[in-house]
């Protein structure tokens, strides 16, 4: 299949030069891994540093006096609690109380917010957000094509980015960000990530993507046994799964409540003003969940994969949303929706792995937590 119809980030050539195995990821031509392989990429990110091209993510600016109120009305978390230079994880919800997308909301100013959304849902989110404008004093801009985004994650990440930046990054706390120069390039520097490690996500103009990427590799000592490694989509997935972070389309969807996915902590039912789906979410909380997301570990050899059926006491009752080997933990793990009475630590479950019924056990999440 020709790759000509696939969208490319500014780092496409760089991925190919590094030996990236390119695949179609939601219409984007992206590397699933590089020459080191998934396991090595995953481990290097946890022990030293990993480098990720996340330029395919979407960026939407909300400017104007009505910005905070507007975003607060469309998302579950409380935007009024953000200060300048702070970001939070949130969800866009629909009238049924399901998740349109999960996202990060960055507050640059009282009248300037940046929404960072998933690559596969950028267009859907843009249509959703623009169609819900209702006379507010705001301007909406889909700036996704105006940014590249590179993540540096791992114990060595801060040191690597600091070497290239004029900003004292020790002042930038977790889920906070600043603007400044990285290798002389104007950037948004955000202490956020999708790996469970410390690190930064750097946003800059796309024409500087290769420069920043190559510089991170150089300063990170790519090629040395303990140097930074570029990490593909496969490692990105195993890293976020070990950290029990949700992936839209798996743990989150239009017909899944954030409460069911364990994201009650980003749903501020008591915040000022209504938000889309609030009444349905509140009703569900009142009534009690019927299903809930749970983490599990395989107890027999075998790997549970996305979509596999889960049974308890011989009865089919759930489904695996994400399943994979966990390279750091050296176990096979996954997340599954289970009836709430079975979504408890210690519960034995059975997973249909291509005809074999294998035992697994519900365990606490996150599966992995970094040493601080």
């Amino acid at each position, binding site marked *: 299949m020709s790759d000509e119809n696939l969208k490319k980030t500014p780092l496409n050539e760089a991925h190919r030069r590094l030996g990236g*195995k390119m695949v179609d990821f939601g219409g984007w031509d992206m590397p*699933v*891994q590089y020459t080191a*392989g*998934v*396991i*090595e990429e995953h481990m290097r990110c946890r022990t030293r540093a990993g480098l990720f091209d996340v330029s395919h993510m979407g960026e939407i600016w909300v400017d104007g006096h009505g910005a905070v109120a507007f975003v607060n009305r469309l998302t579950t978390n409380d935007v009024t609690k953000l200060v300048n230079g702070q970001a939070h994880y949130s969800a866009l919800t629909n009238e049924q109380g399901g998740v349109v997308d999960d996202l990060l909301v960055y507050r640059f100013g009282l009248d300037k917010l940046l929404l960072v959304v998933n690559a596969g849902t950028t267009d859907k989110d843009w249509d959703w957000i623009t169609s819900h404008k209702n006379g507010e004093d705001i301007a909406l801009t889909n700036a996704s094509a105006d940014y590249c985004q590179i993540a540096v994650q791992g114990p060595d990440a801060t040191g690597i980015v600091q070497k290239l930046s004029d900003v004292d990054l020790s002042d930038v706390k977790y889920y906070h960000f600043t603007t400044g120069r990285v290798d002389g390039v104007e950037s948004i520097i955000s202490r956020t990530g999708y790996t469970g490690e410390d690190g930064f996500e750097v946003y800059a103009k796309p024409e500087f993507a290769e420069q920043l990427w190559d510089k991170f590799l150089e300063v990170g000592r790519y090629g040395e046994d303990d140097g930074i490694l570029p990490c593909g989509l*496969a490692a990105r997935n*195993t890293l976020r799964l070990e950290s029990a972070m949700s992936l839209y389309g798996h743990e989150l969807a239009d017909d899944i409540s954030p409460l069911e996915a364990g994201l009650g902590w980003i749903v501020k039912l008591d915040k000022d003003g209504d938000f889309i789906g609030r009444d349905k979410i509140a009703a569900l909380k009142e009534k009690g969940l019927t299903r809930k997301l749970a983490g599990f570990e395989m107890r027999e*050899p*075998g*790997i549970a*994969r996305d979509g596999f059926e889960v049974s308890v006491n011989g009865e089919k009752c759930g489904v695996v949303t994400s399943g*994979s*080997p966990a*390279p750091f933990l050296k176990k*096979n793990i996954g997340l599954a929706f289970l009836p709430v009475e079975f979504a408890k630590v210690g519960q034995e479950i059975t997973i249909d792995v*291509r005809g074999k019924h294998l035992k697994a056990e519900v365990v606490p999440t996150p599966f992995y937590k970094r040493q601080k």
Partner: protein
Amino acid sequence: MSNIPENLRYSKDHEWIEVDGDIATIGITDYAQHALGDVVYIDMPRAGDKFTTHEAFGSVESVKAVSEVFTPIAGEVTEVNDGLNDTPEKVNNDPYDGGWMIKLKMDNPLEADAMLSAIEYEEFLAASA
């Protein structure tokens, strides 16, 4: 460049066999392991299991995907590389030796002769590139 030892026979499904009398040792080729990526689990049959030509005898799982493995020849399993799941990376690092999967008593040793030689397999890989 794929490693393709001269003394083995090959299938178009990227298995290799090494013949010793009427016993064939079977594994997957360097080309196959490279395409799969890091192998994390191998689902293997048991001694005594019987397979026909081109029947799937097990599967190899990488982090992202599962691939079935087929026996190029019919026979009965005499031995399985039991330790392989303790060190599945052997399939990647040592596909023709430590990464061997099963030994099969061949129903018909002539089937082995009909398989591809090293040169024929190399040409097959080049043609499908």
